[in-house]
């Protein structure tokens, strides 16, 4: 197995055995989606109208819950030193961790979203658009989140600062993702929003490993 695949498999295995991160993210996402209709009331048209935005924000916040541990566990127990000395460049290390985070959090959130969309009375086509937008957009959440996680990894309460750092950077993903669902609700094409979202996600996944690796180097030398 290549060093990249080795790190990816280990991180997914750790996420599965810890039992916390994915389950916590899914529970949080489900709770947000359950509470929102209770707060808004039984106006089905209104619920369907706000579904895209609420579910997108819920998914981003749920993914954030486990992001602070992306590098922190390895940093605290000394594994990150050993990973940094391995033949795997830190940029690929970052990419492996981003991919592992998406597999253990972003993908399960995406798979759950059609079920939660039922609570908002979202019609089938916008539900499909929501699913596709999350499938395209959640890698960007992991990628942008990795930059924040690596920047705050040596801070004691870094998890508290992390959302403040990365939520503004994720606003394009929320705007394009929720916008695509709204456009679909209005009978307009969702392709424009999805294309912009794909471009944002592509840029984030492409650039994040370099920024993340630079932040990890900074912290290892700190």
């Amino acid at each position: 197995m290549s060093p990249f695949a080795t790190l990816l498999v280990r991180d997914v295995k750790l996420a599965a055995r810890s039992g916390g991160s994915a389950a916590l993210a899914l529970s949080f996402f489900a709770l947000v989606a359950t509470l929102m209709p209770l707060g808004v009331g039984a106006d089905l048209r209104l619920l369907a109208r706000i579904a895209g935005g609420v579910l997108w924000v819920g998914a981003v916040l749920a993914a954030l819950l486990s992001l602070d541990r992306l590098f922190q566990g390895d940093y605290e127990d000394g594994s990150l030193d050993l990973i940094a000395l391995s033949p795997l460049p830190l940029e690929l290390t970052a990419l492996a961790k981003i991919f592992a985070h998406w597999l253990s959090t972003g993908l399960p959130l995406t798979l759950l979203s059609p079920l939660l969309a039922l609570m908002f009375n979202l019609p089938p086509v916008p539900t499909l658009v929501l699913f596709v937008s999350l499938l395209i957009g959640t890698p960007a959440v992991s990628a942008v989140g990795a930059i924040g996680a690596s920047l705050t990894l040596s801070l004691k309460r870094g998890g508290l600062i992390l959302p403040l750092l990365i939520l503004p950077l994720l606003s394009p993903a929320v705007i394009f993702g929720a916008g695509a669902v709204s456009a679909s609700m209005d009978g307009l094409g969702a392709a424009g929003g999805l294309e912009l979202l794909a471009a944002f996600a592509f840029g984030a996944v492409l650039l994040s490993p370099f920024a993340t690796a630079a932040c990890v180097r900074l912290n290892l030398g700190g």
Partner: protein
Amino acid sequence: MISSLTAEKLALVRGDKKLFEGLSFRVRAGQALAVEGANGAGKTSLLRLLAGFLTPHVGRILVKTGDVESDEAEERGRLVGWLGHLDGLKPQLTVFEQLSFFAHLYGREADRAVLDTVGLGGARADLPCRYLSAGQKRRLALARLLTSQRPLWLLDEPFAALDTSGQGLVADLMARHCSSGGIIIAATHDPLGLGNESLKL
């Protein structure tokens, strides 16, 4: 194969504190260097400097492999076998999974015989790391160090948490590493017992 490691007039400042300056030494293949000093003197920082995690404020570190001498930190890092004061182990993984992960990460094959060498063979190899004692964790870190097959060992308190037999094992592994042409630089309060040079910080 590594020929020598040379430090030239190193100076390191952490925060407002100057840890050392004008530090020069050379360690040749087959030699060990013990770095001694009081707590906070900069022993661990020196090791992190040599590993390439930190950059010296003044001076340079040269590593000679064959006829080529380089001061590239990243190249040097590829030669380093690291045993830090943290064990780098995950409680959720078993002993063999842990070793296997680092072996594959370093492009090696995990060998259960290495676990026998450090006294973690048999049923212990399938034990999750959360059930290991501090000494056993240290032994697993030693197994990982052996598996990395790196020529430049940087060891931070290599005898820490080990019982008498464990300390004997470390001394034996270090002697074998030096006799096979490797270099060891160890931050320690205990004598390495290798007829080595010492560096006081």
